[in-house]
């Protein structure tokens, strides 16, 4: 399914294809790729076909009042941390393996209201804890360009499904890079929105002060359209922004002027691989060719952003994962005899090594006597980082840099050393800590023909500008 949403919609309108055919095509592609790539945790086949038949029937007799939805009949996949009907929601963790969602996430509700059809729940690092999808309790997902390499993560299944053309778009989440980095590793678009743009109701929480809903697609128009369908206030998530622009689509928000763009100096340092640097600099040339001014800008606190992130996020993780107790839902240790054993043994059995590391660090930095030294210190450093971003945005319309220090690494390359794996997040965590929108834009390939992404970082609420600039860049490739 290499076509865009607009092309598929035109085919559906003209009767050249049906929603049932598109859903079957997507399901077949996912099934055929499973042995090689391990994208899917569970297909939502029955519900998807049922919805597709209903959509085709409405279209055939024209009974449905008004226009068909903007995503009518379009299949998609969602990361398996979105609650959805028709399948389990596991967050790729053993502790949630038996869990059937009793309600649906707002993001999926809004896509369904526009006629989109969920065909599968796909793989991730369990609870979003990772940058390679190797921390999944369902085995790693393989990179779309080289199956000996990681998909990136944590939204690895979403990125590979889109890159291979099984579906035109996918939902991911992005807490510190989990949509942007796998998008970059697989050569597609990944958008992390302004914090609060899209409701997280019905999405498994990781770190509530930076969790966002990510959109992955092959074209910027598709990504913007899907985002436009989901964005907006939701009474079920009190962190959603109270208002939104009428449209986020590039067609409605063309770049009307010469932009002042800052190339982030700290992201171009010695940690950056040469092949990635080369592609980023080519993109800088493209931006200049488009008539924009690009110059280097320094935000010194960025060098500390990973240290801030790996204090703040485990703290929030330890709170959010306290709810998995083996009592209300999910895995419950069979051998437990007393209530304390139900908690302790279920959590020991259900959480994997990375989950435990984050829970324990988080508990430690929040514990009496260490709160000020670690957690409060990190949240204060976060203020300094945000102030630097604000200052930069007084001078620049947007910032650019790489998405990740390297292209996709080999499976197993970083699994022995947690800290080394954390370094994969070096360039994505700061926009998360500041709540900024950021997009990974495909930018050619580096060594071994592996995809490279350019990261666009905007002011809060400037998602539409990022889409518009990404659209300009799309035209230059």
């Amino acid at each position, binding site marked *: 399914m290499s076509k865009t949403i607009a092309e598929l919609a035109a085919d559906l309108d003209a009767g050249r294809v049906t929603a049932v055919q598109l859903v079957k095509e997507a399901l077949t592609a996912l099934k055929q790729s499973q042995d090689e790539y391990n994208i899917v945790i569970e297909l939502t086949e029955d519900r998807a076909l049922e919805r597709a038949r209903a959509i085709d029937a409405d279209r055939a007799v024209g009974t449905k009042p008004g226009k068909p939805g903007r995503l009518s009949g379009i299949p998609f996949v969602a990361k398996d941390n979105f609650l959805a009907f028709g399948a389990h929601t596991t967050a790729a963790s053993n502790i949630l393996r038996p869990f*059937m969602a009793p309600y649906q996430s707002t993001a999926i509700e809004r896509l369904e209201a526009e006629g989109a059809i969920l065909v599968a729940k796909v793989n991730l690092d369990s609870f979003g804890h990772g940058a390679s999808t190797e921390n999944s309790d369902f085995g790693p997902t393989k990179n779309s360009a080289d199956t000996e390499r990681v998909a990136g993560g944590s939204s690895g299944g979403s990125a590979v499904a889109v890159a291979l053309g099984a579906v035109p778009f996918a939902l991911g989440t992005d807490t510190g890079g989990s949509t942007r980095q796998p998008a970059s590793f697989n050569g597609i678009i990944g958008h992390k929105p302004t914090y609060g743009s899209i409701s997280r109701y019905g999405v498994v929480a990781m770190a509530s002060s930076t969790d966002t809903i990510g959109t992955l697609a092959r074209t910027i128009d598709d990504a913007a359209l899907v985002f436009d369908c989901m964005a907006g206030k939701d009474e*079920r998530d009190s962190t959603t*922004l109270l208002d939104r622009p009428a449209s986020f689509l590039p067609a409605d928000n063309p770049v009307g002027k010469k932009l002042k763009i800052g190339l982030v100096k700290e992201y171009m340092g010695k940690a950056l691989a040469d092949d990635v640097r080369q592609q980023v600099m080519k993109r800088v040339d493209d931006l200049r060719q488009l008539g924009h001014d690009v110059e280097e800008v320094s935000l010194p606190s960025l060098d500390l952003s990973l240290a801030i992130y790996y204090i703040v996020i485990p703290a929030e993780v330890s709170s959010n994962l306290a709810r998995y107790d083996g009592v209300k839902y999910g895995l419950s240790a069979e051998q437990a005899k007393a209530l304390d054993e139900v908690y302790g043994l279920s959590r020991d059995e259900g959480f994997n090594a990375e989950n435990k590391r984050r829970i324990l660090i988080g508990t*430690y930095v929040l514990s009496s006597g260490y709160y000020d*030294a670690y957690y409060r210190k990190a949240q*204060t450093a976060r203020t300094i980082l945000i102030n630097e971003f604000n200052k930069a945005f007084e001078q620049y319309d947007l910032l650019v840099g790489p998405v990740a220090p390297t292209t996709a690494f080999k499976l197993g390359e970083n699994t022995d050393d947690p800290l080394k794996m954390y370094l994969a997040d070096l360039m994505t965590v700061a926009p998360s800590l500041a709540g900024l929108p950021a997009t990974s834009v495909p930018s050619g390939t580096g060594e071994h023909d592996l995809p490279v992404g350019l990261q666009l970082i905007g002011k809060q609420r400037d998602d539409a500008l990022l889409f518009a600039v990404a659209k300009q860049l799309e035209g230059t490739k």
Partner: protein
Amino acid sequence: MTDTTKTTISIDDVRYVAQLSKIAVTDEEAAKLQGELNAILGYAQQLDQLDTTGIEPTYQVTGLTNVDREDELIDYSVDQQALLSNAPHVQDNQIKVPKVL
């Protein structure tokens, strides 16, 4: 654990936070975690170089405060049986746990 300065995490610290987190860890796991936690927190200690005097911490990034709404019931359309069917042990529409007293 009343010392407010940063120290290296001991094996007892690991057991203590594991107990706080309600995670039963084996001796082998505790030893491995001790090394990993020290490496990660050691990395985070570069924040010490930053002068944060007089700066307030940030907990919410978009400036939303006191988001309220009319005090009306929202229909979440969540079915009781669907919720209970996820519980490992149910009896008489109640979630069952081992005897506490």
